[in-house]
């Protein structure tokens, strides 16, 4: 605002004041048509973030698409993408920027449509405060309850309840107060640190930038005043020092620095720090920046630390002060917000990224799903897009973390689909399930290398995948025979056989198929540990599971062999008469008929069974092993 800029003496003082401004990130949420876009547009307009050319465009757009008669429709300022503008809805999170001379603001603008949970969670994850809009005519709706819940779940402690369109209820004080009462009634459970209710008209600007003369009964602050003044605990005073190592900086032999951003608390040169994962300690020698060494570094600062001695630390490790270490565990309990198009499959292995560390993770137990309109907990087998659940996760390796309530940076994670690479969930760790902090991995004397060496070979997994009847078992058997003749030590895991024993409790639902493959992959891994060449012959229809299997052994130890036959050909062969039964509906979830088969996109070996005999194809697999250096010629 112009008047806010007046009275500033010298320009340099002014610039210095701006450099020293604090930053507030907040989120706006409301149901469709509550006036959210109008409110944000107005904040931008009234704080003069609008330039003349934008204004000209706004006026012409208002005439073309506006919903406000001949007046300016501020909402058009912020409805961004073409597709959305045509449909008249906002479907994604947008970020807006404005500043006064006291604060710089980043607004996460999240829409109230179907995808709202995912979008709101995204916007809320970086926000310190939430503005919840309600329409004064409608009062608290189910949506409002959802919004408040998600805001609290994501750890936002300050809420503004913006009772909008107060002009449409005649600026009625009683109406306002009854809405505030309704809100406080259910929101008390969330224990927000502050809830500030403001009656406003976003369209006309009442109580947005300045107090409105049309509501003399309201004694509180206008929205902008409140946003400028609210104290946000910037770096969690008293928080424990956390430094996730992001990148090791080694320009030459004389310098080894740990680059990262302080994720909690602060640290001084000379402090002793500990690597959370190993317990190794060292002292901070220097806090390096291009502008010179710093005496201390605090939350939010990106610096490079050097230590007084060499320790084993790399990307993904967390440095802490010895007296206040994070938890270290490979099992955690967490809330999950599901964001994937495909639903969660308990047991399936996903990638989990927490801080700078990425590990394998599977949901071992889905405790419940949360019905966010009633806050009730319901039993659930899976989570679909926008569902929220509470679960136990098992990780492939221990990670260092804090409960999310204590530190949003070290208590949060995302889950990534191993195959599509999509971000499928956001997670908030509530607690560790097993304190692995004191349990050290036993370094066994007789290890994989030793066992393999005594067998005189290099272990590997040959993973044969393909439709039933494609010829997997036939070829795998031939390959094993050939290897055996070459003096190699092998083991063949065959789908049908394993299902009679180890996996006889499993059926053919998607979830059971995932578990089936998980067990087989783990078994294969043990055999690899024992030094063997393992042949796995399983339909294994899903790419994700095959990727998971590849992921649990070392690079170069896993070979995906795609035994290829068109469905019509496999069905024609039908060695076990299964296709006939499936077609007759006697077998449910039959791959290729009533359950999908996801072809490998990049198999290590591709065997086209319509073009050559099993004998020749088996020889090709052997050839591949030779070329990969697994067996001598």
């Amino acid at each position, binding site marked *: 605002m112009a008047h806010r*800029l007046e009275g500033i003496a010298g*320009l*340099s003082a002014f*610039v210095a004041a*701006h*450099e*020293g*401004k*604090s930053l507030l990130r907040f989120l706006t949420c409301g149901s469709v048509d509550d006036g959210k876009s109008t409110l944000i547009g107005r904040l931008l307009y009234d704080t003069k973030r609008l*330039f*003349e*050319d*934008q204004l000209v*465009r706004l006026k012409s757009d208002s005439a073309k698409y506006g919903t406000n008669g001949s007046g300016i429709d501020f909402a058009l300022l*912020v409805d*961004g*993408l*073409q*597709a959305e503008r045509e449909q008249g809805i906002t479907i*994604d*999170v947008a*970020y807006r*920027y404005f*500043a006064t001379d006291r604060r*710089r603001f*980043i607004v996460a*603008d999240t829409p109230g449509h179907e995808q709202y949970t*995912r*979008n709101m969670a*995204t916007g809320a994850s970086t926000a310190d405060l939430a503005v919840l809009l309600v329409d004064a005519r409608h009062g608290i709706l189910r949506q409002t309850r959802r919004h408040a819940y998600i805001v609290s779940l994501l750890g936002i402690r300050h809420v503004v309840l913006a009772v909008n369109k107060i002009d449409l209820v005649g600026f009625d004080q009683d109406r306002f107060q009854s809405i505030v009462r309704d809100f406080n009634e259910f929101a008390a459970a969330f224990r927000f640190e502050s809830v500030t209710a403001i009656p406003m008209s976003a369209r006309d600007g009442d109580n947005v930038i300045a107090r409105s003369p049309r509501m003399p009964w309201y004694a509180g602050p206008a929205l902008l005043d409140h946003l400028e003044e609210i104290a*946000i605990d*910037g*770096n969690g005073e008293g928080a424990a020092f956390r430094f996730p190592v*992001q*990148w090791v*900086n*080694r320009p030459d032999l004389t310098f080894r*620095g740990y680059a*990262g*951003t302080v994720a909690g608390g*602060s640290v001084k040169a000379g402090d002793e720090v500990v690597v959370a994962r190993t317990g190794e300690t060292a002292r901070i020698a220097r806090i390096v*920046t*291009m*502008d010179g060494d710093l005496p*201390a570094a*605090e*939350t*939010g*600062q*990106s610096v490079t630390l050097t230590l007084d001695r060499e320790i084993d630390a790399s*990307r993904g490790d967390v440095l802490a002060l010895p007296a206040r270490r994070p938890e270290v565990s490979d099992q955690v309990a967490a809330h999950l917000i599901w964001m994937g198009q495909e639903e969660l499959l308990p047991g399936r292995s996903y*990638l989990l990224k*927490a801080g*700078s560390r990425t590990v394998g993770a599977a949901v071992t137990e889905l405790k419940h799903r949360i019905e966010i309109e009633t806050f009730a907990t319901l039993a659930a087998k899976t989570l679909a897009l926008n569902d929220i659940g509470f679960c136990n996760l098992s990780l492939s390796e221990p990670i260092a973390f804090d409960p999310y309530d204590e530190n949003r*940076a070290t208590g*949060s994670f*995302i889950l*990534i689909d191993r195959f599509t*690479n999509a*971000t499928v969930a956001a997670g908030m760790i509530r607690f560790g399930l097993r304190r692995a902090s004191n349990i050290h991995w036993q370094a066994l004397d007789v290890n994989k290398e030793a066992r393999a060496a005594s067998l005189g070979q290099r272990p590997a997994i040959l993973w044969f995948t393909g439709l039933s009847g494609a010829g997997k078992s036939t070829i795998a058997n031939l390959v094993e025979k050939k290897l055996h003749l070459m003096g190699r030590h092998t083991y063949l895991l065959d789908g049908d056989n394993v299902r009679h024993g180890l996996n006889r409790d499993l059926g053919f639902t998607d979830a059971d198929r995932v578990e089936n493959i998980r067990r087989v992959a783990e078994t294969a891994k043990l055999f690899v540990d024992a030094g063997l060449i393992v042949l796995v012959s399983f339909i294994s229809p899903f790419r994700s599971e095959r990727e998971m299997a590849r992921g649990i052994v070392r690079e170069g130890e896993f070979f995906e062999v795609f035994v290829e036959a068109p469905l019509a050909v496999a069905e024609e062969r039908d060695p076990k008469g299964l296709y006939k039964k499936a077609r007759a509906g006697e077998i449910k979830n039959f791959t290729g008929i009533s359950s999908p088969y996801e072809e490998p996109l990049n198999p290590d070996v591709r065997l086209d069974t319509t073009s050559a005999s099993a004998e020749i194809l088996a020889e090709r697999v052997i050839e591949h092993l030779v070329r990969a250096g697994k067996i001598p010629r």
Partner: protein
Amino acid sequence: MSSEPLPHLRRLESEAIFIMREVVATFERPVMLYSIGKDSSVMLHLARKAFHPAPPPFPFLHIDTTWKFREMIRFRDDAARRYRLDLRVHTNRDGLARGINPFDHGPLYTQVMKTEALKQALAAGRYDAAFGGARRDEEKSRAKERVFSFRSASQAWDPKNQRPELWSLYNTRVRPGESIRVFPLSNWTELDIWQYILAEDIPIVPLYFAAERPVVERGGQLIMVDDERMRLLPGEVPQKRRIRFRTLGCYPLTAAVESDAATLPEIVAEMFAARTSEREGRLIDHDEAGAMEMKKREGYF
């Protein structure tokens, strides 16, 4: 220990450094797009900070349309020498041979000499991550742009298929052939850029400062006559005016503003009084609403 939160410029700086390090730690072949403008100058400065004492561990790519201001090219080569950058310059040779130029070809020129040229250079370098200086406040369709913006193997941008970004947990995984464009300055505004340049004393192309320069007035825009290739319309005579640029690109397509701001503090002061957005000077955006979104779908930065 102070509990004062970091001032906003320090927070933005720190965030940009974090983003750059994340890319270097997780991608195999990152590259920084270097357009020589003020945003690129800020990015370069941040890259030097992020990896200090090591030099920025990636090459810098400039897409040269051959129509950049001469002072820009001089500045670019100076910067590369001063900071010992691995500078790679790419021009769409085919477009050049076809005589594509800003006077005759309008939107086709941008498509061929910028968008196509960029795609060629990114594909040839097999870069899996490319830093760009775009900011979300520049234009409405950018407000929803991710910091890590996912591009398919054909380098296309699908607004419906972007990954959610929570906390500072960026999903950096791509398959072979796919790539990511990364915008470390996403959360900066034009004013932040100028304040930061002032606070950190970052060198920028002198064209940003007001000086007497030869210009013609065309359709209400001031276009600088940077060399003899400028095609003058009948009756047009270049005249000296005191001008500067708020944004830099190809000289025939970049409008100047009349200004007396010859120092950084004066520029910042002018910014506060400014009544037009910097894009006003970018003739490329003057087509219909949604134009930028279309360009991005096609692979424009």
